[in-house]
């Protein structure tokens, strides 16, 4: 069988290179019974279109951002809620428990989760230092079109963000139509946004998550042994990708600093209060699974305590 998988991730990126390597390995280990064919660079359309094409049967899977599946299963937003994590160690600790929960939720909706990857932390980047939460007032803040969570957090912070497609952001920054964005360091460099901003508020706003899902009906057509091989190989590739992405972001942070971008320490407590209020509002519209998120918070607190006692 051939699994046709599409993504907006560009060809030639390290992400695609790993995925191609995984496809090669799958082909080899299944004796050519399972092939994976990729359609990178968004040639099959946006994440939403990829999902539509999975329904029509043209595609079998997609590597898409977590947000694109949120209306089908809101649990995919679990790691991407604002000001949840302080560092990647925390993320990796809770993933052991919560990845299976997300996989199960997707399975209930007909999607086989093959891989879940950390795309790095996104930070507020701006033309001025955003140290106090009130500094955001009067800023022209970009949010992706239709991003309910992003919109809500800035609304609670007291401003109306500007929703526009990602392709318009660079020109927006250039003309001054926008001056504040939320993105991870390597993304800022890849999209050249770093040439238009001077400050980075050094507090992780949210974790960008990507996932590889395939249609369960298509996946079930593969025999059980081969299914296991696909799962195992792709999972290993995603593990490697987490490391590659982490290193990429460390390098990107250094490059940002070298480019003269100032790293400011914002008030974490203020933002956490704002996030809390936003999450209460978002719970009302079912934007995330509140119970599971509560469990995640508890798990995080325990982990933080254990880390503190270890340090003592």
């Amino acid at each position, binding site marked *: 069988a051939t699994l046709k998988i599409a993504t907006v991730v560009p060809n030639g990126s390290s992400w695609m290179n790993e995925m191609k390597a995984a496809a090669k390995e799958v082909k080899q280990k299944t004796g050519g019974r399972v092939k994976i064919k990729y359609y990178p660079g968004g040639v099959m359309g946006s994440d939403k279109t990829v999902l*539509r094409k999975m329904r029509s049967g043209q595609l079998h899977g997609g590597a898409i951002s977590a947000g694109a599946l949120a*209306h*089908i299963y809101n649990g995919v937003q679990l790691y991407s809620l604002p000001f949840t994590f302080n560092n990647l160690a925390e993320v990796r600790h809770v993933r052991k428990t919560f990845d299976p929960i997300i996989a199960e939720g997707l399975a209930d909706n007909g999607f086989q989760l093959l891989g879940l990857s950390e795309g790095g932390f996104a930070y507020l980047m701006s033309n001025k230092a955003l140290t106090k939460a009130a500094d955001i007032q009067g800023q022209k803040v970009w949010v992706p079109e*239709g991003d309910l969570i992003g919109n809500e957090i800035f609304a609670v912070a007291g401003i109306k963000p500007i929703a526009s497609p990602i392709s318009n952001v660079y020109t927006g920054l250039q003309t001054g139509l926008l001056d504040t964005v939320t993105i991870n360091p390597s993304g800022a460099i890849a999209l050249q946004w770093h040439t238009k901003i001077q400050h980075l508020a050094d507090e992780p706003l949210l974790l960008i998550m990507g996932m590889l899902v395939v249609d369960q009906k298509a996946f079930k057509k593969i025999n059980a042994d081969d299914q296991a091989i696909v799962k195992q190989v792709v999972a290993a590739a995603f593990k490697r990708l987490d490391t590659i992405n982490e290193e990429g972001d460390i390098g990107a942070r250094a490059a940002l600093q070298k480019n003269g971008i100032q790293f400011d320490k914002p008030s974490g407590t203020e933002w956490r209060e704002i996030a809390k209020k936003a999450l209460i509002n978002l719970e009302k519209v079912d934007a995330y699974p509140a119970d599971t998120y509560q469990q995640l918070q508890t798990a995080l607190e325990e982990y933080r305590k254990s880390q503190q006692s270890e340090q003592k």
Partner: protein
Amino acid sequence: MPKIQIQRVQRWLHNAEDFLLAAVLFVMLFLAITDIAMRLATGGSLIWIPPVLQVLVLWLGLLGALLASRSQEHIAIDVLSRFVGPFGKKICGISGSLFAAIVCSIVAFYGIEFIQQSIEYDDIAFAQVPAWPLQLIIPFTFSLMAIRFFLHTLGFLRIKDYQPNPALKGENA
């Protein structure tokens, strides 16, 4: 159905299409201007305006295409019919419009299947707005276009020197 009644239905349909098209264009212009004005006035914008504008582009495009099919003003490489006689012209006209009618019917048919899939899987357009009502425009316009092209086929079959575009009447003769 008697001829008079068919004409009445047709006229009603034409008026409805014209009205819808004008309304969509006005709404689009209004929203685009509101978006800019809001930003100038408050520094922010309404999150739903850009995605709505993009849906309106689709609607406007397809309604415009429907309008163009009424008088067959679609873009075409009309080379052969220039070098053939009246009978050749008739053949070109019949096959071209019948072909378009069939293609539009197929697109309309699968457009309905597309919408069924959308409803079944809770496809969303943006935020939490369901996509299927917005996607209805595809089977709607393509089925009406199929009818228009079929009527042109009949016109070519029955009427001597049939010219679907009144503006061009006589020019190609």
